[in-house]
């Protein structure tokens, strides 16, 4: 299962397991990942967790900004639309930094292979 680790001065201050199909990030108390900080919108972004439609066992994590005031950034590029997260991506929510870690991704074979029919 993937986690979102909040970084403060490059140290993990908090970790959130991405264990539900839909997880909201924001300042509002009903957000599964609540970030109580002034630069974060009430409902700032969402992460969707989906089984990959073509590759058995692979799970995709997609992030979408929810029209936040201060934006969502992936590896310093402002998020525009929906984007798949890759392990070690750096996510900035307002002024808050997170590292997306997906240990299962590292177990995937890196060399080319063919899907069996």
């Amino acid at each position: 299962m993937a986690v979102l680790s909040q970084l403060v001065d490059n140290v993990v201050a908090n970790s959130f397991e991405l264990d539900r199909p839909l997880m909201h990030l924001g300042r509002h108390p009903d957000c599964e990942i609540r970030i109580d900080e002034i630069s974060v919108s009430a409902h700032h972004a969402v992460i969707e967790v989906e089984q990959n439609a073509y590759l058995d066992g692979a799970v995709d994590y997609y992030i979408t900004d929810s029209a936040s005031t201060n934006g969502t950034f992936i590896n310093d590029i402002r998020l525009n639309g929906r984007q798949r997260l890759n392990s070690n991506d750096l996510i900035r929510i307002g002024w808050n930094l997170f590292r997306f870690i997906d240990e299962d991704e590292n177990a995937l074979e890196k060399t080319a292979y063919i899907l069996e029919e």
Partner: protein
Amino acid sequence: MSLFAAGLTDIGTRRSSNQDTLACTVSPEGDHALAVIADGMGGYRGGEIASRVVVEALMDALTPVLARTPAAQVPERIQTAITLAAERLEDTRRGRPELDRMGTTVVLAWVQQQRTWLAHLGDSRGYLLRDGSLCQLTRDHTVAQRMVDDGSISPDEVARLPFRNVLTQALGATAEPRATVTELALQAGDRLLLCSDGLTDALPEPNWLPLLGRWPVLDDQVRGLVDASLRNQADDNVSVVMIQYC
């Protein structure tokens, strides 16, 4: 009209073996041409064997009939040869468990005067260079391409996808693999380019045309692309075939 062909394969900068195989031939009259690139996989020996067996099978089956096949029968001829190549691969694998996972991509160009058929399985590609522009003629048989097609990811995200190398089709995985065949009409001055993913991974497509413009001779153009990919530390085997229609 005249056809010219040139091809080159290189081990790249990191691999210990070259698992790509290529072949190309032009008829003595210069009006027919056949070119194939296969990019093998499945272990050190398996990948080498798979690509070699498949290229030899395709060339054996198609070269003798290249100049005497009616246009309407070309796609069927190609598919029959693909099926034969898959059978040869299966025969080679039999009784050799170390070759269990071997397989190969294939991209093939059949040029018959102005008409061309491109067939492919996997992520080896075919391109058309015409009037100073580059057009990809094949669509990769990969999980990544399917995700692009269904809108899950953008083309820019493919390079970062951890399973970008997973193929949905190739020779070696299915009993009766079916190639995707594309037909097009050539114009004077057109060039076809076939390549393995070693080129596309190491050398972004926008770099190709400026590079190719440096050399008038086809052999030098092919060499120029391969050399540029090596300068970029191509970590996979790199293979390129070009066919020019004059």
